Every structure is written in structure tokens, then in C-alpha cells.
């Protein structure tokens, strides 16, 4: 009984810490993005709220709390309410299996691990929940009773299905090399310096993963579901207040999640690139690598214009998926001869 209670406390506290940290990072990711985009365009980004605009995410959050919550006439209220939750929950639930660090911490005789749980199908679990997020977008677009929302939702469904294939296929190469679906095991398989990271044998898969991940999170240059200049705001045109905030949080949480997975699969998770640098705590390495990817996504957003819809589909089906399949083929053949 006491063991059970201890287990519950450990799990609940870990979940709490992970959720709070992730949500804080999500909030400050918006600040990070606005600042970097501003600098790239020779502007300053947010400067007014707090020192250099540091309190801007908090001000934005407070503002969204006090906004009026509007449900459009003729909208399907149940689905309209359900959609933001359906988007946000899968985005946050994926963080349960992300290993943020290596070392366990002992406090009051309880052992805290740097991840909520380590299930042996970790990466599959994340992919499965990421697909559920697409339902939220689709249903939100449909329930809004608005043509722009519907178009955004439809585009999102087509895009997510197309790019999820190449995303899943690009991961297979890594799984073949690591021999496990558990994210902890995958990270451990890459120990011992940066030359053991999977980015080197799986560089093609890495590029495919990066591109598909941008498409999965609906970000520029693949932001057709929410294309501002053509669809107002796409699937969340009709959303306001906290429901809008849920979509917004989900988008940025998805960005962080996708960056975490990229870090774990290709950049060796918490491992330091050189043994000499391993005095820096593993968790800092992890966060640093994740922010490297986040910067990359923002950088791409600051550089590229939006693709046309047929270009998006053609790129997904005619380039990415054959490349990913070829990568799997080459990887498995090479592995067969090397490992024998």
C-alpha cells in the first residue's frame, strides 16, 4: 500500500513538473519566435512589456483569458468545444515518454526519474497520439460553420496524412539501428560521442524527418491549413478566447514535441557530443539541442514563403515517401551485411 502511494506521488509530481515546464517553454517559445523573426526582419520584436518584452507571453495569456468566448451561430457546439481539447491533449500527452535527462534524483527517499514513463513502444505511442491531433483540427474546421475553417480543416487532413507517412517511414531507419521503440533505449544506443549519433548513418532520414515535422506541425512553409493570406486563420478562424489559446498552445507544444523527438532520434538525446563536455548536465544538453531545432523551425519560417497546394502534395508523395522507402531499404540491407 505504501509502495503504491509512493509510486503515485512520484508519478504525479513528475507529471506536474513536466507539464509546468513544457507549458512555460511553450509560452516563452512564442516570445522566442517573435524576437527571432523580428531580428531577421531588422525589427526588435516585443519590447514594451517588461525588460525587452520578457513578460509579453504572460500579458498575452492574461489577455486571452479575458477575451469573450464566442460560439458562432449554427455551429455544432459539442464538437466546437471538443476540438481544441482534442488538439491540445495529444500535443501534451506525448511528453510523457520523452526522456529529458539521464540521472535519477533522490528526494525524501523517493526516486524521481527525468521522464514520466518509459514504455517499450514509446515512439509508436507518440505517433499514434499525433494522428489524433489531426481529428481536432478537422472537427474544429467542420464544426465552425465557416467556409474558411472547413477548407483549412480539409487541407490539414490531407497534409497530415501525406506527411505522416514519410514521418513514420523516416523513423524506421533509426529503429532498425537502435533495435527498440523505447525512447530511452534509442537514446542509450547513441552513447559515446557525437560520431555515434544516428544523424550520421541516417542523414537522409534526418532531413526527411525535419521537413515532414514542419508539415506535421502546420508551420511555414507548409502552413496551408492556417494560411493567413488566403484562409483568414484556417481551421481556427471562428475560435476566440481560451479555445483559440488551446489551438495556439497545441501548435507550439507540437513544435517542442517534434523537436524533442528529433533530438532523441538523431542527435543523441541527452548525450554530450564529446566526453570532455560531459561535465555539463545531460538535461542541459537535451534542452540545448531542442532549442537548436526550435531555432531552425523559426529560421525556416523567417526565410521561406508558403508552398502551393499541388506543390505540397507532389513533394510529399513523389519525393519524400520514395526517399524514405529507399532509405529503409538501404539501411536494412547494410545492416544485414554489417551485423550479419
Amino acid at each position, binding site marked *: 500500500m505504501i509502495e503504491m502511494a509512493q509510486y503515485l506521488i512520484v508519478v504525479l509530481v513528475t507529471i506536474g513538473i513536466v507539464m509546468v515546464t513544457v507549458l512555460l517553454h511553450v509560452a516563452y517559445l512564442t516570445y522566442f519566435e517573435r524576437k527571432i523573426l523580428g*531580428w531577421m526582419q*531588422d525589427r526588435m520584436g516585443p519590447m514594451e512589456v517588461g525588460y525587452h518584452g520578457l513578460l509579453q507571453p504572460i500579458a498575452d495569456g492574461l489577455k486571452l483569458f479575458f477575451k469573450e468566448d464566442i460560439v458562432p451561430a449554427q455551429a455544432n457546439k459539442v464538437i466546437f468545444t471538443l476540438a481544441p481539447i482534442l488538439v491540445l491533449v495529444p500535443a501534451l500527452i506525448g511528453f510523457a515518454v520523452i526522456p529529458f535527462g539521464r540521472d535519477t534524483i533522490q528526494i525524501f527517499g523517493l526516486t524521481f526519474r527525468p521522464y514520466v514513463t518509459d514504455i517499450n513502444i514509446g515512439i509508436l505511442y507518440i505517433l499514434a497520439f499525433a494522428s489524433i491531433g489531426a481529428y481536432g483540427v478537422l472537427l474544429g474546421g467542420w464544426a465552425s460553420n465557416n467556409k474558411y475553417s472547413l477548407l483549412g480543416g480539409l487541407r490539414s487532413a490531407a497534409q497530415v496524412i501525406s506527411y505522416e507517412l514519410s514521418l513514420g517511414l523516416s523513423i524506421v531507419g533509426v529503429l532498425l539501428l537502435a533495435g527498440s521503440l523505447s525512447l530511452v533505449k534509442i537514446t542509450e544506443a547513441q552513447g559515446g560521442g557525437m560520431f555515434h549519433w544516428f544523424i550520421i548513418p541516417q542523414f537522409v532520414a534526418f532531413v526527411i524527418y525535419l521537413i515532414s515535422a514542419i508539415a506535421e506541425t502546420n508551420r511555414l512553409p507548409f502552413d496551408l491549413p492556417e494560411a493567413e493570406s488566403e484562409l483568414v486563420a484556417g481551421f481556427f478562424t471562428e475560435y476566440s478566447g481560451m479555445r483559440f489559446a488551446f489551438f495556439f498552445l497545441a501548435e507550439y507544444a507540437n513544435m517542442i514535441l517534434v523537436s524533442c523527438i528529433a533530438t532523441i532520434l538523431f542527435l543523441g538525446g541527452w548525450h554530450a557530443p564529446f566526453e570532455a563536455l560531459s561535465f555539463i548536465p545531460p538535461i542541459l544538453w537535451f534542452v540545448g539541442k531542442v532549442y537548436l531545432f526550435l531555432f531552425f523551425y523559426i529560421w525556416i519560417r523567417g526565410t521561406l514563403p508558403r508552398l502551393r497546394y499541388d506543390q505540397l502534395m507532389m513533394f510529399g508523395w513523389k519525393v519524400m515517401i520514395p526517399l524514405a522507402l529507399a532509405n529503409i531499404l538501404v539501411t536494412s540491407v547494410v545492416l544485414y551485411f554489417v551485423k550479419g
Partner: protein
Amino acid sequence: MKRLKRLFQQILFLEILAGMAATFKHLFVRPITIQYPHEKRVLPNGYRGFIALLRYDDGTDKCVGCDLCEAACPSRVITVISAEVEGQPLKRYAREYAMDMTRCVFCGLCVEACPVNALGMTKEYEYATYDKRNLNLNKEQLLAIGDRAFPVRETRVEFQHPHAAFFNVAKRGYPAK
């Protein structure tokens, strides 16, 4: 060969990489933003801001009430009611002088039209207000703008040049200081 090179460029995303290099360079370019309420740009001389009525250094107003500014104004901003100094029919002044700044286009034609340089354009441009009627300026307000913007006043013409036109004199002491 050229097609091969083009294919190679496409496979390696060379064009995209060039674009990304350009945006990355701009990360380190100094922002051109001027944080407006905290810092303001230096206005050039000859900036056409609020219009002011001017005084001579003894406090009398320069305006002789000739109505030329009213005639020159393309958007009918200016209303002048001219009057003569009692007993001196040749000496006139503006009894009332109003400018409806909501209509003003800041073209400066009134300033150019004035024969006695009684009007001036200042560098004031922050005149946003909650009530439009606040922008309907009367003579005192216009003179106050002039006092604010042009602290160095001109000497009366007859003291500068003893032979200048003698009628170019406003009623002494008007408005009372």
C-alpha cells in the same frame, strides 16, 4: 551538364540554403526600429507640423489681418476676422483668428502667403486628442504654439528699418499680456 548542375542544386536545396544564409545574416543587423514614444527621430528643418501665429519681441502679434492666408488656404482651414485700430484706419489687426486643424493638409501655402511673416510652421506633430473640437484652435492657442515653438522673436519692422511701411503695426498690447 547544365541540367545536371541544376538537379544537383535542387537535391541539396542550395537555393533554400542561400535564402537561409541571408536571413541569418540579418539576425546581426542593427534593428532600424525607433521606439517611438521613448525615442523620437530628429526632424529636418523645414518640417511642416502645427501652424503657429507669431509675435514681435515686444509681445504684439505680427498679424495685420489681411486675409491672404485665408485666401491661399486650399482646404479652408483659416478664418480671419479683421478689424481696424480705432482712429487709425490704415492699421488693421486680426480680431479673431481660427484654424480648424482637422482639415489642415499642412501644405504651408498660408505661411508663404503671409506678407508679414506672421505665420510659421513648427515641428510639433503630436496633436492626437480624444475630442475633435480640441483641434479647432483660436488665436490665443495659435499664439501659444508660436511662443512655444519660436522662443526667439523678431523685432518690430519699424525698429529694424526706420523706413519700413508704417501701417504694418498691430494694435499695441493686443492681446493683453
